[in-house]
């Protein structure tokens, strides 16, 4: 006769409520694990998807994910001339926040080296990649934007032509992909007034020196567009992504590029490590510690619940002992209930999670290994937390029946 099951059937409502409580608690533990993994995945997502062998960044900096990195665009051409380099693409990344349909819209803009890179590697769920050099945008669907939406950014309007899935930045913002020149237009956009002020200031600066006063043509140029002044270089890029030819060792290529005095080079793994140990490290550790704390709290709560359940049955346990029941009968009663409670709690957490986590604003990533790991933790919690009750039950004097 299975006493644990009989007792549960008799107190079904109470057992169900307790299981739901534990299930909700385990949902938090599960969710924290998922948020932790989601944070790591989001942080390294772009690096994984771009899949560059090398990241060339501004000398002395740790790259665009760690700090501001600015490189002249010609670095791309210089890198291409290095033996063993298959491709080199400029990388531009910056975050913007605008209003769209009365709601805040945060996007992490990534610039692609059109036409060499037209975004074929993007995980599209709808629409297409770029068909022209300007005014098209591929955006992650977590942004809430739809195909055909027209987004004014700077002085231009960009049309959403493609939607991706699960492309978020390390800060959780949806990624938007533009061609490099469009991304730079958005990044360095200035208002008309600011441009006019800058031109006036430029002319004034020129007139303050002899060369400006003696050369009216130069003054005319200074009052015009900055792109028409050869002394001004093209806008900077954040990094250059390098793919190495098959058969070449990326480290050898990296060593050659690193010898240049104006750049630093990181491998894909090095960039990932910089992200994980730098930018998201504190959040990652905080969530990790919070998860540990939640597991401890869950264990304590489960132990208290099981202890209380045991206390409620102490008279019956004393009677069982008086009747001569073996310890394993009593132990089985408590342990089986603990495992059933844990198992049911885990199942509830699983189903709640399946329904709820995809609705979270940021990614919650739970892989099968996480479920297995949590299931083992739940079994351990169930066994350990039932120990208090078991110790109490085994110490019960059968004479308690008389009291």
């Amino acid at each position, binding site marked *: *006769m299975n*006493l644990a099951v009989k007792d549960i059937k008799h107190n079904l409502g109470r057992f169900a409520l307790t299981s739901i409580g534990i299930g909700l608690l385990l949902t938090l533990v599960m969710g924290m694990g998922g948020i932790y993994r989601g944070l790591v995945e989001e942080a390294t997502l772009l690096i994984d998807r771009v899949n560059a062998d090398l990241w060339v960044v501004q000398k002395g900096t740790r790259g665009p994910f760690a700090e501001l990195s600015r490189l002249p665009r010609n670095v791309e051409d210089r890198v291409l001339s290095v033996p063993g380099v298959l491709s080199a693409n400029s990388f531009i990344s910056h975050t913007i926040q605008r209003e769209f349909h009365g709601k805040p819209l945060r996007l992490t803009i990534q610039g692609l080296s059109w036409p060499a890179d037209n975004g074929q590697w993007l995980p599209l769920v709808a629409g297409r990649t770029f068909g022209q050099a300007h005014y098209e945008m591929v955006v992650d669907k977590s942004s809430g934007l739809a195909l055909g939406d027209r987004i004014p950014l700077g002085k231009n309007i960009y049309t959403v032509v493609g939607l991706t899935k699960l492309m978020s930045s390390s800060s959780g913002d949806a990624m938007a992909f533009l061609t490099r020149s469009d991304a730079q237009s958005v990044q360095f956009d200035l208002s008309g007034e600011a441009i006019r002020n800058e031109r006036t200031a430029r002319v004034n600066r020129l007139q303050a020196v002899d060369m400006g006063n003696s050369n009216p043509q130069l003054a005319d140029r200074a009052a015009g567009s900055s792109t028409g002044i050869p002394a001004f270089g093209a806008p900077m890029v954040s990094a250059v992504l390098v793919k190495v030819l098959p058969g070449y060792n990326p480290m050898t290529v990296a060593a050659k590029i690193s010898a240049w005095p104006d750049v630093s080079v990181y491998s894909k793994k090095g960039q990932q490590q910089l992200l994980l140990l730098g930018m998201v490290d504190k959040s990652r550790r905080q969530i990790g510690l919070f998860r540990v704390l939640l597991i401890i709290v869950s264990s304590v709560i489960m132990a208290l619940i099981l202890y209380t359940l045991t206390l409620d049955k102490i008279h019956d346990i004393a009677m069982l002992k*008086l*009747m001569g029941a*073996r310890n394993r009968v009593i132990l089985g009663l408590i342990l089986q209930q603990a495992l059933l409670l844990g198992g049911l709690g885990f199942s509830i957490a699983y189903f709640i999670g399946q329904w709820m986590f995809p609705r979270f604003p940021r990614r919650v990533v739970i892989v099968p290994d996480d479920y297995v790991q949590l299931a083992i933790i739940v079994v351990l919690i169930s066994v350990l937390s039932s120990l208090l009750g078991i110790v109490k039950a085994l110490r019960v004097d*059968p004479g308690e029946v*008389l009291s």
Partner: protein
Amino acid sequence: MKYNQDLVVEASGITKIYGSGNTEVVALRNVALNIARGKVAALLGPSGAGKSTLLTALGLIRPPDAGRIVIEGKVVFDGSLLVDARVFRRKHLGFIFQKANLIPFLTAMENVQLAMEINDASPREAKKRAMELLEYLGVGDRANHLPSKLSGGQQQRVAIARALVNRPGLLLADEPTAALDSVRGRQVMELFRNVAHEQNTGVIVVTHDHRALDVFDHAFEMEDGILSTSQALDKEIKNAKS
């Protein structure tokens, strides 16, 4: 050493002391008691006289501090416990208390069945015997009811069935009718007599109730931890029987 096989209990020099120093209370003083198989003995006396203490001592629930107890020819206590009390209780003793103490989440039949399964009987065998006993005790029709759905008298009958299911040599009952009205109380006492006579079980019943004395074969009186046989009580029993 040979023991009288007709006796289900032979106890001598039973002493039990609670506390120590100023708080010391002698609950049992050198108690000696013999009960034959198939006999029902009453243990009478005022509250605090030590009746329940004697019962728990004989039942190896709270063993005495000194003395010797032989149950069904086996020395179970001689200054210290000589057997595994839990195993011995399971195989040789049955208990009934003022409260039925049924497991609330088991039906009447399961309560009885469990006692037998604990004693290594197969579930099928246990179920069959449990049903037989419940029917014998007049509660067969309530077999599938939970204790909360049974009256006090029915619960006590189920408790008796549970105590008898393993065919114990000795049945110990501590005020089993205290919570019952006089009619049901008498029925329970008569049940003890029938069980004792039909199954050759020794029964010791702690009671305050003098009205059912005729069902007993012997009566003992306890006061301040001292057990005595009372001629007056024996006479009372004889008169009641006649």
